[in-house]
């Protein structure tokens, strides 16, 4: 019963059959991160190391898909952990740790976007990922670049909602919590973002680039 309550409160996505397993995972994960945060607040670097190992790629992907800039994404990932370290002592587990983590990440992302808009360097400073990371075929790199460009053109709220949905596989309720919006708005944002990107993919297919 305690387990079921915990799962429900964190809105874990699971069907009836896998329910107990998912429930245990969520419970362990929550307990693990709470323990790490307590240790981090005492200045234990090993706990922060573990937390970073677990979350750095997720954060980096989130930032990279939003900014298409390798160094900035690295920098924001690092800043997120810095904020986690500073706030670890005052952390109150009101929601899932990941909700808190991505709230911090999103705030940093918004600050970065504002900074970019102020200095108007978005086009000049954009950096593409090395070719070898996407494979050897130049055309694959091209369609990815086209999509990267398209995703940057989407409003931040639509893009973030879509990324949290696809990358983190969050429920609409969880996304709404991070974005301080209601579920219906989140659904609309995701739908709009998908429409834009899918139409771009359709164009690429029609041109024979995909």
């Amino acid at each position: 019963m305690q387990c079921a309550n915990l799962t429900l409160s964190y809105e874990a996505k699971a069907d009836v059959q896998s329910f107990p397993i998912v429930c245990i995972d969520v419970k362990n994960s929550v307990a693990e991160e709470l323990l790490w945060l307590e240790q981090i607040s005492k200045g234990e670097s090993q706990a922060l190391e573990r937390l970073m190992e677990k979350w750095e790629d997720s954060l980096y992907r989130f930032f990279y898909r939003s900014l298409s800039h390798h160094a900035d994404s690295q920098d924001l990932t690092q800043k997120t952990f810095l904020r986690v370290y500073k706030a670890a002592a005052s952390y109150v587990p009101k929601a899932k740790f990941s909700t808190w983590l991505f709230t911090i990440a999103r705030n940093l992302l918004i600050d970065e976007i504002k900074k970019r808009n102020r200095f108007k360097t978005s086009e000049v400073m954009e950096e593409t990922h090395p070719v070898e990371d996407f494979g050897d075929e130049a055309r694959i790199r091209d369609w990815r670049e086209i999509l990267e460009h398209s995703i940057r053109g989407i409003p931040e709220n639509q893009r973030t909602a879509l990324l949290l949905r696809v990358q983190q596989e969050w429920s609409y309720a969880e996304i709404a919590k991070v974005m301080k919006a209601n579920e219906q708005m989140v659904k609309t944002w995701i739908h709009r973002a998908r429409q834009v990107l899918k139409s771009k993919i359709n164009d690429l297919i029609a041109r024979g680039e995909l």
Partner: protein
Amino acid sequence: MKTENKEDELLDDFLRAENLRNQRTVSANEIIALGKGSVRDKWSRRLQLFGPLAIAACVTLVFIFDFKEDAVQRSGGESLEETTLDLSEAGLLEDMMLLSPEINEFFAISEDSALEMLVMLEHKMK
């Protein structure tokens, strides 16, 4: 998450970007050092900003307090028992108290009356 068609699948693969990995440039120790440093910086910035303000506020308070005390003393706020006048001051005060009614009366009378008085005094002196 289930995908509906090819476009959705392509899009989700692209968004997940599972081939991307963070190439970490700082360790947990460095982040902790940065965190401690920024906390120290924050306090030193606060000290730099509020230190002079606090000193100025203290000086102002001391000045106001001192000024108030002085004003109370001047306005006779202190008791009569505490008031001590030396002999010369007491004599001066006595003279002033004696003189002031005469002066007041002198200035209170009209110019004609004053002239008449002067004439009478002259007459008497002769």
